[in-house]
């Protein structure tokens, strides 16, 4: 090609320019244009070869240019002719790319149209939900105003109280506490010697310095300075537990106390009241106490001894003096909240209207259904400790009444509304029953007290124990569909990419966040493959109808019918109904939890009847049927995991009452242990649910 081009280097400028512009207008592949260029220039060369002078060449060239005719028309003709020359495979590829381009363009237009659909809100499902839940009773019988006041009056616990509480409740914290207790006891004498040597460092601190450090310990974060260039320039923190372990390790190994490994910076521990500012001032003013590490270690060890040394192994054992010292003030602060909570629980029903503020652009299920649940849960936890404090202060009657209050309040959220509310109520109910069993296990009640308690407890659920009700959840789901799909259009409405996340809060994308822009193409693609509105509603109704039936089946019935706890909708085409997959609750598991609540209640009533029998007969009955025959129990409790009566066995002066649990097998009354932790509700692999005797300690 370079040879061909070199032929034309002596052409007159007008000819070169003509060819150049012609080829530019031709707009075709470079290789073809180069070919045409070479051929045309050769033509000019041949035409001009006989010209004698430059002038003649110029004139002749101009004549030839004119003879070539209209440049634009010629360019088009050349282009068309050359296109016809190309091989079939090249034509196919070109047409394919053109078709793909057209398709992409169409798709972009479709996607834009798709993204900007608007939902049509036709049905006020929230009003229907409220109508469903509102009983035809007087307002004065409604518990909600009392609960609402209690929530407002509630004083949250300090981080210190929260920790002290979790040393009993939270398995991780409890394990830490028990480990430290053992370390403290095992090294008691060495620790005492260490105190004798180091106490002076603490005593040398000013009152203000001591106050700041003790405040830090209240938040369970221990501060220590970082030394750079031989002077402290920043603070690091570690947890009270880690610091205690570090100190005891140093004492045990008789090594010099070193700076512990940092768990974080001040910002990590910066609860609003954490004295970060004071600590920073110590650095600025260079007033960090000398031997800070030894001084703070004295305080840490003292605090650890106080918290852990006398902590009982038995989780239901009476509260220690220290626990009472920490928890009682918090309970007293909440007396007003407690009174309202107790008043509410005594009411016959609880109606809290669901509300949706259309001005708030955040319509997620959580915002409508759940704002009261977290405060309610905190109130219940406070009530549990209210009951325990009363129990350990000798006010047994009041403690029992507290437990009944908890169970009564649970009843207010059962068998209606959303599943999450019903599940929370199951949790509350279980807490109440658990506390009652703890009292029965530790304290001796008279026959009259047992009878009264049994009557009061059974009166809370005069009919059958409430199971799961899915109708409220169905309405909520229909509302979300209504707000996430267009109403018409091809196929009966489509899922609007930007809306479904807004109304479900599934991805929790901030509307101003660039995440939303990043996710939008994926959401659009996902919405395109999702089933249309009509199909989604039909599928959801089909599943709810099925689940309404299956939630009334015991776990055992589901087991023998091969209906898994993992619900059947999970096996359907997930890409077409992923919204159902995401939003529809696992009703199989929820239904199982309701049955657990039921059996917990019935087992508690049975245990009360057994204790009454024992007091009347000085021994336990041979079988539960005897309780029924004696009129102490309406009917033997049916284990939902076997559809047979709970397993009852007389033991040495005591008895065992248990359910075979979710593995549907009798494990002879042994609870499941996994990773060194007890699973009191069993696991799918092993373990029974033991109601009596009440578990006393964490298995080691």
């Amino acid at each position, binding site marked *: 090609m370079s040879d061909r081009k070199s032929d034309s280097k002596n052409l007159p400028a007008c000819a070169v320019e003509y060819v150049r512009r012609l080829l530019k207008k031709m707009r075709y592949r470079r290789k073809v244009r180069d070919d045409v260029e*070479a051929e045309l220039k*050769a033509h000019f060369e*041949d035409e001009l070869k006989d010209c004698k002078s430059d002038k003649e060449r110029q004139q002749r060239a101009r004549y*030839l240019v004119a*003879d070539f*005719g*209209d440049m634009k028309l*010629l360019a088009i*003709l050349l282009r068309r002719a050359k296109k*016809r020359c190309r091989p079939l495979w090249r034509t196919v590829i070109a047409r394919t790319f053109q078709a793909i381009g057209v398709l992409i363009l169409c798709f972009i237009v479709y996607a834009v149209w798709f993204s900007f659909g608007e939902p049509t809100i036709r049905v006020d499902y929230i009003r229907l939900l409220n109508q469903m839940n509102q009983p035809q009773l007087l307002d004065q019988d409604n518990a909600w105003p009392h609960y609402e006041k209690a929530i407002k009056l509630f004083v949250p616990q300090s981080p210190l109280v929260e920790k002290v509480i979790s040393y009993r409740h939270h398995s991780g914290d409890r394990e830490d506490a028990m480990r430290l207790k053992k370390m403290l006891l095992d090294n008691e004498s060495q620790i005492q010697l260490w105190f004798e040597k180091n106490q002076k460092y603490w005593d040398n601190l000013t009152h203000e310095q001591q106050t700041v450090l003790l405040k830090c310990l209240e938040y369970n974060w221990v501060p220590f300075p970082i030394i750079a260039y031989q002077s402290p320039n920043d603070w690091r923190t570690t947890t009270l537990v880690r610091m205690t372990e570090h100190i005891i390790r140093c004492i045990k190994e008789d090594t010099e106390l070193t700076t512990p490994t940092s768990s974080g910076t001040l910002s990590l521990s910066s609860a609003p009241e954490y004295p970060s500012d004071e600590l920073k001032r110590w650095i600025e003013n260079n007033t960090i106490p000398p031997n800070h590490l030894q001084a703070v270690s004295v305080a840490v060890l003292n605090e650890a001894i106080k918290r852990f040394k006398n902590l009982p192994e038995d989780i239901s054992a009476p509260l220690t003096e220290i626990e009472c010292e920490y928890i009682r003030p918090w309970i007293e602060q909440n007396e007003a909240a407690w009174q309202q909570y107790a008043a509410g629980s005594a009411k016959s029903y609880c109606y809290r209207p669901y509300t949706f503020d259309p001005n708030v652009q955040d319509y997620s299920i959580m915002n409508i259904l759940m704002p009261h649940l977290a405060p309610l849960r905190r109130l219940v936890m406070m009530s549990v400790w209210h009951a325990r404090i009363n129990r350990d202060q000798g006010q047994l009657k009041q403690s029992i009444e507290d437990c009944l209050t908890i169970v009564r309040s649970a009843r207010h959220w059962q068998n209606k509304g959303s599943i999450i509310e019903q599940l929370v109520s199951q949790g509350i109910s279980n807490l109440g029953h658990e506390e009652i069993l703890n009292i029965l296990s530790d304290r001796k009640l008279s026959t009259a007290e047992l009878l009264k308690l049994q009557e009061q407890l059974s009166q809370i659920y005069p009919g059958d124990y409430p199971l799961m009700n899915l109708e409220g959840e169905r309405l909520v789901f229909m509302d979300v569909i209504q707000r996430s799909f267009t109403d018409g259009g091809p196929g009966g409405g489509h899922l609007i990419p930007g809306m479904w996340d807004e109304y479900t809060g599934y991805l929790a994308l901030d509307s101003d966040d660039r995440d939303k822009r990043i996710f939008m193409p994926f959401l659009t693609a996902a919405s395109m493959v999702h089933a249309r509105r009509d199909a989604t509603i039909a599928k959801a109704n089909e599943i709810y109808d099925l689940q309404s039936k299956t939630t009334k089946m015991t776990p055992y019935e589901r087991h023998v019918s091969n209906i898994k706890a993992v619900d059947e909708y999970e096996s359907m085409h997930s890409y077409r109904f992923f919204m159902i997959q995401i939003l529809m609750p696992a009703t199989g598991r929820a239904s199982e939890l309701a049955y657990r609540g039921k059996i917990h209640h019935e087992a508690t009533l049975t245990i009360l009847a057994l204790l009454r029998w024992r007091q009347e007969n000085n021994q336990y009955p041979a079988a539960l049927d005897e309780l029924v025959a004696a009129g102490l129990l309406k009917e033997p409790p049916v284990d939902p995991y076997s559809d047979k009566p709970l397993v009852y066995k007389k033991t040495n002066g005591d008895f065992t009452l248990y359910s075979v649990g979710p593995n549907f097998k009798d494990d002879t009354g042994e609870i499941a242990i996994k990773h060194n932790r007890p699973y009191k509700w069993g696991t799918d692999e092993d373990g029974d649910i033991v109601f009596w005797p009440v578990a006393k300690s964490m298995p080691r």
Partner: protein
Amino acid sequence: MKFESQLLKGVAPVVVLEILSGGQMYGYELSQAIEQRSGEILTLGKGTLYPLLYNLEAKKLVQGKWETAGSGRKRRYYSITGSGKDELAKQKAQLKELTTGLNLVFGGAIALA
């Protein structure tokens, strides 16, 4: 002589095929040959010649290839293909028929060599 464009357009491919049936030529040679052989009655504008050649090439009636001319320069030579010869024969037969018809109409004043 200026012909009606449609008239020339109809016969130009046959003329080119006929000239090429005598041997391969490049563009310039071809345009010169047409003028000479037609006694300068037929002149194919350069703007018509090359699109016409490319179209004939697309129809596989002619074949173009770069070769070195006697002057030592590269030129694109066009030669008639087998299909081109068939097409030429067909077109010539049609033209003969047309001329016969036209002769009858015009009293023998038109003849095709």
